[in-house]
């Protein structure tokens, strides 16, 4: 019997990262100072990022593809994981969850995301998704002694499992229809058998929408997000608000654009109401939030809504805009969380937005940074947020969805209110009690990176756009 090892070139990043994760897992037993693990993980990530170069190719019988698209998303995941780890280091000490598994799980989850981004086969996709999801469930519930954290984990887990059941059902449908799980093969079969418009195909598309919609927190599958974001450890909230969302978009983009390419019209039609609903719910409910993590949860829902426009555009430009958007979102959102995390100190949650009263007076610098992130999230130039939105809107309008964009901009104008509210609390109110910030070099570094990124991308977005364009080429 013939048995030759498949070309593992494209998978090297994943393998390396797995190795690192395992090392972290083991080293945890020996090393007392968990910061070391954090730094090691970061170094590892950087190394992995290095191995990404030239790792392009298809392997494992077309199940795993490493192309520009996946690479770009992997970059997003790396940015996400590095920044999250940076802001975690001090925080998890305060939360008394300073265990090595924390970092290991973050890395595993990242591996899951990477696999999702590279999945060219529904089986791999499913497994990657589960890998990511399971690790994230655990991370969400990592503060075992905190009921909120438990609750977050439970809700996330239950609904996550529920949604992945839908994903599986959809997968089985597709499998039944096409006799394969390979995305390209599916596409090929659908187009040559003219299955487009077949109701059961549509059904499976919708079931995928449900599953992916859950991951990217698109209404009406977003319900988990606010609770989980609020309950999970803040660092993990930051991590979740970017990573799984990006991964979700990665698979959404790949599956819909590749496998269901011929059904573009249908799934675009399905996604339009979803995106409107998402923007609406996200922005409107955010208005009446008093817990900032919760507010950012809704805001991230809203942002998923904007990003969906890029998918709806259903062309490479659209995808590029989505990728670009998610990268920017990673920076600005985690930046915001970095500030939030600084307010958390022994015996002070610092999650209520009234805790920000007069921050500009007590801590002008952090206030200024928060201001930048808030305006960036609103999408006011010259911040990165504007570039992201602009690109999305451009591609959507180019694809002929002007009216949809009008809806989007109206919502983003509404969104300005709750972002401004934070600024307003920081700058236009007098401090109630003196809030002490728990700063650390790592958090500082994270803040510097994010701020610079937000401003530089805001003014000189070219390199990012080039990157996205290049990444999407030959998709």
């Amino acid at each position: 019997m013939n048995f030759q090892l498949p070309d593992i070139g494209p998978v090297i990043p994943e393998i390396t990262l797995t190795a690192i994760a395992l090392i972290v897992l083991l080293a945890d037993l020996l090393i007392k100072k968990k910061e070391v693990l954090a730094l090691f993980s970061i170094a590892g990530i950087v190394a992995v990022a290095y191995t990404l170069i030239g790792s392009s190719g298809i392997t494992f019988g077309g199940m795993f593809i490493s192309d520009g698209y996946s690479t770009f998303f992997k970059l997003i995941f790396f940015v996400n994981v590095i920044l999250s780890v940076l802001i975690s280091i001090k925080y998890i000490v305060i939360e008394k969850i300073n265990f090595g598994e924390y970092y290991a799980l973050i890395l595993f989850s990242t591996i899951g995301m990477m696999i999702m981004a590279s999945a060219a086969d529904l089986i791999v996709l499913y497994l990657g998704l589960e890998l990511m999801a399971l690790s994230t469930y655990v991370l969400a519930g990592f503060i075992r002694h905190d009921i909120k954290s438990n609750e977050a984990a439970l809700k996330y887990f239950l609904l996550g499992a529920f949604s992945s059941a839908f994903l599986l059902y959809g997968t089985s449908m597709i499998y039944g229809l096409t006799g394969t799980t390979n995305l390209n093969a599916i596409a090929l079969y659908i187009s040559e058998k003219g299955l487009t418009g077949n109701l059961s195909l549509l059904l499976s598309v919708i079931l995928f929408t449900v599953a992916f919609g859950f991951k990217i927190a698109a209404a009406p599958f977003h319900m988990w997000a606010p609770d989980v974001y609020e309950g999970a450890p803040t660092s993990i909230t930051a991590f979740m608000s970017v990573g799984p969302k990006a991964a979700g978009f990665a698979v959404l983009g790949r599956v819909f654009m590749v496998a269901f390419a011929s059904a573009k019209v249908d799934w675009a039609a399905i996604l339009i109401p979803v995106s409107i609903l998402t923007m609406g719910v996200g922005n409107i409910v955010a208005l009446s939030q008093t817990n900032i993590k919760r507010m950012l949860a809704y805001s991230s829902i809203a942002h998923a809504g904007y990003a969906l426009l890029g998918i709806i555009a259903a062309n490479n430009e659209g995808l590029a805009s989505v990728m670009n958007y998610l990268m920017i979102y990673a920076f600005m959102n985690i930046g915001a969380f970095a500030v939030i995390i600084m307010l958390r100190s022994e015996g002070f949650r610092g999650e209520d937005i009234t805790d920000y009263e007069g921050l500009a007076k007590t801590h002008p610098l952090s206030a200024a940074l928060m201001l930048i992130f808030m305006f960036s999230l609103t999408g006011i130039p010259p911040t990165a947020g504007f570039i992201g939105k602009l690109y999305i809107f451009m591609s959507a309008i180019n694809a002929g969805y002007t009216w949809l964009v009008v809806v989007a901009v109206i919502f983003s104008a509404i969104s300005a209110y709750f972002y401004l509210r934070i600024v307003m609390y920081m700058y236009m109110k007098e401090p109630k009690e003196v809030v002490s910030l728990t700063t650390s070099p790592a958090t500082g570094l994270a803040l510097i990176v994010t701020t610079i990124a937000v401003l530089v991308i805001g003014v000189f977005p070219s390199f990012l756009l080039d990157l996205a364009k290049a990444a999407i080429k030959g998709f």
Partner: protein
Amino acid sequence: MVPLNWYILLSAVVFTIGVFGFLSRRNIIIMFMSIELMLNAVNISLISFSHYLQDMRGQILAFFVIAVAASEAAIGLAIVIALFRNKATAHVDDIHEMHG
């Protein structure tokens, strides 16, 4: 020879029973079981497909599903236990610290 559609129908029914269980049972364990039901429904369809299409992927996927189901069960139950330590209830609707 049993037509394939019967299997599909069966899986659909079981799936929705699972859905119903998940949507309406308070007891957390039973919700887990409902999820397992849904997964089994999927497995049924997968395996029937793989039989009728004379292709192994279905079974392989089902195999992975079972693996994942196991892990999910483990994680889920671990979460439940962690929760139990803070709030001794088996009823999900008692758990709504966070809302709004």
